[in-house]
């Protein structure tokens, strides 16, 4: 009796220790990134880092605006391409597909989440970049925001699809029946009752997808071109901005960290801190939205 009690207790403590370890990992990563980034933040200043439009480490110019623009634009592109696809997929899985079919489609979508991102990069290089190059605009190399957005759209698909499908399935069956019983079509029921009722869950799903998009690194390096420029339209058509090359915040760190020293290295760590805070904000806002829903 007594030994059993002791075993029970110690298993409890052991498991708690494991849980604390993962929290400790988050804390340590945050702490060391911040420690390494602090010299740059104090010397250059957060303001100049965030608003400077020139990144030329050799000349001690550390403006992150080109990379911020690159990250933001590629994420917007990925959302434009990926969100409708993902929500369509979620509606299909939750509302339309018979069980046997969703049992095939769902694992296939989930498999997308398991593909290493370097493989996405390879696919982007051999398929999407050549495709993007076919758009006949002067200065279009194929490498750039369009190809990167397309790769990213597929990468965030499983996140958004999974969570949205879950949110749609949580909509009470009574709403669905109540709507159909009024003589509405299935499509009307989906667009007028089910999607509005699942809205907060779907918004949270999109935000989490965006968080994932902002953090993606290697696949972006492989297809986005990595030029340190603020993306601009290649001709009079503003949409050609997506044919411009760019560099993401994450890509900037990965490309330069191998040879960076001194303040340059610290500036890259500071970029890491900015990303860390940004993604923490994004995830917690998604969490807050979801919590609001379940209440």
């Amino acid at each position, binding site marked *: 009796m007594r030994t059993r009690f002791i075993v029970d207790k110690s298993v409890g403590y052991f498991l708690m220790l494991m849980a604390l370890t993962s929290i400790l990992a988050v804390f340590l990563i945050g702490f060391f990134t911040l420690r390494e980034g602090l010299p740059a933040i104090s010397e250059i200043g957060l303001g100049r880092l965030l608003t400077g439009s020139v990144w030329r480490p050799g000349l001690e110019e550390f403006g992150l605006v080109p990379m911020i623009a690159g990250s933001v634009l590629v994420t917007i592109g990925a959302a434009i391409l990926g969100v409708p696809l993902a929500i369509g997929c979620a509606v299909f899985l939750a509302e339309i597909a*018979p*069980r046997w079919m969703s049992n095939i489609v769902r694992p296939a979508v989930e498999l997308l989440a398991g593909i290493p991102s370097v493989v996405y990069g390879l696919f982007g290089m051999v398929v999407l970049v050549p495709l993007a190059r076919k758009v006949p605009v002067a200065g279009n190399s194929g490498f750039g925001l369009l190809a990167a957005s397309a790769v990213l759209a597929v990468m965030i698909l499983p996140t958004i699809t999974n969570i949205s499908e879950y949110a749609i399935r949580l909509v*009470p069956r*009574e*709403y669905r*029946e*109540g*709507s*159909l*019983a*009024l*003589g*509405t*079509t299935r499509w*009307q029921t989906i667009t*007028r*009752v089910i999607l*509005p*009722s699942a809205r907060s869950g779907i918004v949270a799903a999109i935000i989490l997808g965006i968080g994932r998009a902002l953090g993606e690194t290697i696949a972006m390096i492989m297809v986005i071109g990595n030029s340190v420029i603020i993306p601009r339209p290649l001709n009079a058509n503003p949409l050609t901005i997506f044919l411009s090359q760019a560099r993401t915040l994450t890509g900037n760190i990965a490309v330069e960290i191998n040879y960076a020293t001194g303040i340059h290295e610290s500036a890259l760590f500071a970029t890491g801190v900015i990303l860390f805070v940004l993604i923490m904000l994004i995830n917690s806002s998604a969490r807050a939205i979801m919590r609001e829903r379940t209440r």
Partner: protein
Amino acid sequence: MEETTGACRLRTIGYKLWYGDFCALHETTLDIPSNRITAIIGPSGCGKSTFIRTFNRMNELIPGVRVAGEVLLDGQDIFRLDVVELRRLVGMVFQKPNPFPKTIFDNVAYGPRAHGLRDRNRLAEIVEKSLRSAALWDEVKDDLSKSGLALSGGQQQRLCIARTLAVEPEVILMDEPASALDPIATLKIEELLQTLKKDYTIVIVTHNMQQAARVSDFTAFFMTDENRSGHLIEYGPTSRVFTNPREKTTEDYISGRFS
């Protein structure tokens, strides 16, 4: 059927229903008269909800359901009608009040809007008329932009009735509409039924035999036993079924000798 008077609105002829291989409802033949309240009574699992969900083909939402026999609405085979049109003609109020998470106005306007009505004034008229018919207007007229979910249970159920009336059905099906409500709210719904039957044909499933006796003109008694799942035992004018049942099973059930 000899007892039904007036025009018959709904009729089932040898209607049967299976869930997969399980026959949930055995051959049922009965006529439901127009502008009357017909109550469907019987113990749990006797197929009364399944039966009522036949008339707006809600059973089709469940995979694996098969039916046989005929079901007629005003002489037309409902299985040949467009299901969306059928459900406009045959409205339904559910056991648990299920207003949409929208405003009171939008709840009532939902059906007409889905059917293509855009004119604001016309919508406002329909909303007011429907809420009045559902005896809810006086309680909510100052606050139509409040969420339907903010109302009390009884009010929510009357909102659902108003929502159903707004699409101008001919028949209203009610699946234990008061079972989730307190006695006062129940009484309000029962009073409402008496005014609604002037304009609509009402079929109501109820667990509560006093309620069936109080509100209905005709009563159909369904039963289930070891040998047969849901089947119709007796059907006739409520006063006759309750005071002078023809079947021993009916008498036993009504006098409370079964659960």
